[in-house]
């Protein structure tokens, strides 16, 4: 069993029950020194590039996931692997540098496609057999792949921007890979950075605030009237899809529900789905005073609930607040009813109006979230470049030391032969050392010079590197 916690530096620490730690614990700098972000690859597709018919065939089921991940990392092309499998996307994050890695992943998706279609996938199935798949698959590499992962974890690449589930799904994908042993230093680094950024986005923006669907808009209204914790009794008038969708968003544990329909059979069938009490239309007036929430979504020429019905119900409730949501067109509840004390009536246009206001708000917050991701990417890129520069400096120093030791060997031989080093020999030795040190830069500069004016920038850089033209 794995537990997760985010520490101060928001590096995700995974500990098993025996206390053993999976993954890195230290801050981002430690990770950066041990990973090469250029080897991070993402191949997959999302709702943007493939319809649900394709996504559902390419999805990996949870039970076979550990096996899939283990078999992936046992291949020569892939060092580490994490599979992010949600209703909106199937994305495989792998560590591998060779061009075969991408081809290999494409072949895995092709095999998955064949397996889903219940046709026997030949052992050497490749992308060539499914050219449309190769085109549909999105590929990202290096820092772009990391940026994409951050965007996904921050819920900016979701069908409903800001939906909270995706962060948990990304975290679960990472944990599954840790449990399967397919996540190494690179995946720890990439996913912990992505989760850290997603958390920063959640904390610093209101991206998850404000409902952007009809169901959630109704829930937001209910929360503004009753609060998120009050146990409510709801009545649903009608058995349509809209009513069902709305009820599923609104009702939580502890809420009770009555379903009212003209047809008792339909009311009973609907109430079974929602674990509710079925009522016939004749009992509606009697049941109304007990309801905190009424959702009306039935087809009717005239309003079923009149002002008189609501007045009587509200009087019996002693004007305790009641939310009436009328999703019907023509309307199911008489519009005059909204003047009654304690009754809050919303029709489908009102809900759409709220959704429009909230969508604008979320778009604004999404822009801020993108800025946060860009900031993080710039900061990480500069850290990675710093690491690269450090590596280069170390290599350069080692090379110089190697050349020095070579020349020293020669000098020792001369010293052994002649008993002393004269000025000419010393000059020759130092000249040879400087020639060797400058050999590669001079060759590269000559090659660059052959390119003509196109190489002027590189030559300028070389001049800067050696402190020339000051």
């Amino acid at each position, binding site marked *: 069993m794995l537990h997760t916690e985010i520490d101060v530096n928001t590096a995700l620490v995974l500990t098993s029950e025996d206390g053993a730690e999976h993954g890195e614990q230290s801050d981002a700098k430690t990770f950066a020194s041990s990973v090469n972000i250029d080897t991070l690859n993402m191949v997959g597709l999302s709702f943007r590039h493939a319809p649900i018919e394709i996504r559902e065939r390419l999805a990996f089921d949870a039970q076979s996931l550990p096996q899939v991940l283990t078999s992936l990392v046992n291949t020569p092309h892939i060092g580490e692997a994490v599979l992010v499998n949600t209703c909106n996307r199937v994305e495989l994050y792998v560590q591998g540098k060779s061009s075969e890695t991408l081809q290999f992943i494409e072949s895995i998706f092709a095999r998955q496609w064949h397996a889903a279609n219940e046709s026997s996938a030949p052992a050497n199935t490749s992308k060539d057999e499914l050219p449309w798949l190769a085109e549909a698959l999105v590929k990202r590499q290096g820092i772009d792949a990391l940026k994409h992962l951050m965007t996904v974890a921050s819920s900016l690449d979701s069908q409903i921007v800001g939906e909270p589930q995706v962060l948990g799904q990304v975290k679960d994908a990472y944990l599954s890979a840790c449990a399967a042993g397919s996540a190494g230093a690179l995946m720890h680094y990439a996913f912990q950075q992505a989760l850290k950024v997603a958390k920063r986005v959640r*904390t610093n923006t209101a991206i998850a605030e404000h409902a952007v669907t009809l169901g959630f808009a109704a829930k937001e209204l209910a929360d503004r009237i009753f*609060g*998120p914790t*009050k146990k409510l009794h709801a009545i649903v008038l009608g058995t349509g899809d809209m009513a069902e969708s709305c009820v599923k968003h609104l009702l939580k544990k502890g809420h009770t529900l009555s379903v009212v329909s003209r047809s008792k059979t339909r009311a009973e069938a609907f109430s079974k789905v929602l674990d509710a009490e079925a009522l016939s239309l004749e009992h509606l007036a009697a049941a109304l005073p007990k309801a905190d929430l009424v959702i009306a979504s039935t087809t009717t020429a005239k309003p079923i609930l009149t002002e008189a019905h609501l007045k009587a119900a509200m009087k019996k409730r002693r004007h305790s607040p009641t939310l009436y949501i009328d999703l019907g067109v023509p309307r199911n509840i008489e519009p005059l009813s*909204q003047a009654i*004390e*304690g009754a*809050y009536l*919303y029709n489908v246009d009102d809900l759409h*109006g709220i959704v429009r206001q909230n969508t604008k708000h979320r778009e604004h917050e999404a822009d801020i979230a993108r800025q946060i991701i860009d900031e993080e990417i710039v900061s990480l890129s500069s850290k990675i470049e710093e690491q690269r520069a450090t590596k280069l400096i170390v290599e350069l120093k080692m090379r110089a030391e190697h050349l020095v030791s070579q020349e020293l060997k020669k000098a020792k031989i001369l010293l052994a032969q002649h008993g002393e080093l004269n000025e000419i020999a010393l000059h020759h030795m130092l000249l040879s050392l400087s020639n060797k040190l400058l050999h590669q830069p001079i060759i590269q500069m000559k090659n660059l010079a052959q390119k003509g004016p196109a190489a002027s920038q590189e030559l300028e850089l070389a001049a800067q590197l050696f402190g020339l033209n000051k």
Partner: protein
Amino acid sequence: MIDWMTVLSLSALIAYAAATLAFVWFASLARPLSKFVAYGLLFAAVTFHVATVAFGLIFGTSTLGALPDTALSISLLFALIFSGLCWRFNLAGLGFILAPLAALGLTSQWMSPAHEFHTTPLVDTVWLGMHIAVAVLGDALLLLLGLMAFAFLLQDRFLRQKKMGGLFAKLPPLTELDRLALLLLITTFVFSTAGMLTGSVLAYQYWGQEWYTDPRQILSISLWFGISLLLYGRLLAGFRGRRAAWCTLAVACVSLCGLTLLPTISSTKHQGGYVAH
């Protein structure tokens, strides 16, 4: 020499102003971080406010019961009770109204003209201390009750207009405001009854039979009747919603106006709590 009372008051005032801005930030942009910043600043403001009142009482620069100091104490209790309620109820959406009101109470010490108040041996008793304590607490609770009623009316208005409310989008839920208002109404009734009874006994002892003709006593009794009627209506007659909120707001406003204006417009013997000579 440093005037510590002024330093503490100014610190509290700055913290209240910063808390107001942070609550506006929370209400308008709903950043999760803003809520913690706002509560932190409110806590700092209340701490400085407590220090101001405590300093005044310990070093004798405040006269307990004098109008400016009463306002200082009421605003402190107002902020303290609100902060306490925030632990149980989600009231952050009201912070940007509360913080400036508490700051206003704090500034009353500079706005009111300086009066010299003297205590007489008769009223300088524990009984008087009790009267002041319960009366001040009752006033603070009534003001907070008024704030809840105001918030209820705003929330109701936005819900009826089908607007999300902009700056007021983070107001507490309607039923929560209603429940809180009832809770505050009951406690206000308890403290105002205690305040009125202790005050009446003192006034009878000091002024004799004429105590009931004093404008402040008449106002107090009227307000107490108003609060009692509201409580009766809420508990037994199903009086709630907008009408109840308007009535509550009216009682709170009359109380606030009475407290601040009565000593200047009438010849009441009761000026904040002590007799002015």
